[in-house]
């Protein structure tokens, strides 16, 4: 992928994008996650890293700005970095505290549906997951709205244990402790 750095050449030009902030690596310095970006680049594209983060390049970057502007830019980038860090910490915390609930709901005597809540907190597209559940278990599976707001996946049939295993296995970023199976006895009481 080294050809990304040559300025002209056959089209389409190949551009490398940073794996951390998704911008072209030369713009990483404006993203607020500079340190991480730098590490990533060092690992994946060492030649580019050398070019972009050499002492010379940094000095050249600074020389084009006035002293005052430099200071302001520095302050700004610090602020941005702090913001990015706090946002990340928040996301991490959310991930640690949020739970995936697998509910077995009795629909009729000996007939069950299984409702799965909380997958969206882990960055999953629940519409797609619902489709996958349906494919995997060969049952109807749909996204339904919950009265309290939000959405859940409803899978036909008593599949709570299977779904538990499947979720833990296929989505490694969901810690096993955060997945709970509960049984919901009779949703609506007989009239």
């Amino acid at each position, binding site marked *: 992928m080294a050809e990304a750095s040559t300025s002209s050449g056959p089209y*389409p030009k190949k551009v490398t994008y940073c794996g951390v902030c*998704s911008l*072209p690596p*030369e*713009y990483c310095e404006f*993203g607020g996650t500079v340190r991480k970006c730098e590490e990533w680049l060092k690992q994946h594209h060492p030649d580019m890293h050398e070019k972009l983060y050499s002492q010379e390049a940094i000095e050249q970057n600074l020389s*084009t700005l006035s002293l005052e502007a430099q200071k302001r830019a520095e302050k700004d980038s610090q602020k941005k970095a702090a913001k990015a860090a706090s946002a990340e910490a928040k996301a991490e915390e959310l991930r640690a505290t949020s739970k995936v609930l697998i509910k077995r709901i009795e629909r009729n005597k000996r007939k069950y549906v299984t409702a799965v809540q909380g997958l969206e907190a882990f960055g999953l*597209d629940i519409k797609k997951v619902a489709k996958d559940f349906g494919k995997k278990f060969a049952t109807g599976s749909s996204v339904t709205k919950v009265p309290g707001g939000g959405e859940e996946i409803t899978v036909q049939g008593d599949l709570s244990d299977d779904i538990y295993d499947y979720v833990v296995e296929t989505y490694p970023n969901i810690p096993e402790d955060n997945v709970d199976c509960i049984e919901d006895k009779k949703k609506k009481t007989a009239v």
Partner: protein
Amino acid sequence: MFKKDATPGAKSKVKSSAQRAIRSKVLDEYPKLEPYIEDIMPKKEQLDLVKLPDRVSLYTLGSTPLFFQHMDDAFMPHLSLVHKYPSAFHRLRIDRGAIRFVLSGATLMVPGLTSAGGRLPNDPEDTEGTYGDEELEAGEVVVIESEGKENACFVGVLKMGTREMKKVKKGQACEAGHYLGDGLWGLNLG
């Protein structure tokens, strides 16, 4: 335009007649894309239309975004397309100091273009002719590159002709655009 994270709305297939119309309109606007148009949107492939907030529609080929359009305005290229075919568009350059403002979504101001690091068409310092010799009028779609960088960072519509910019040297230059790291850039088109 995409300061907030955009969530893709309904995705639908584009009729082949509409697809032809898009193709010819794109070629009208960006004649320099002609040699590559078959690579960008092959005749046989199915384009998709993704609706975005604020009446923006985005045309994609599979999961690669190509062009977006606000209502019936001009087609604007997605930055990833610009990165692939940089010379097919009208280009201007901003100085280093302006990059961080542009990347946080500010309106592009004229001084960023007229200062020493910036480039407008017919710039005496532009020896290679990268930035063209044709003065641009207000309303044209331009791609903004930046000083010391290789890839473009912004796509927008000119608010002021380049000739006027050189005279006035202040005010807003570009409006409502798409910049690196905005909602459109971060869009996930699974």
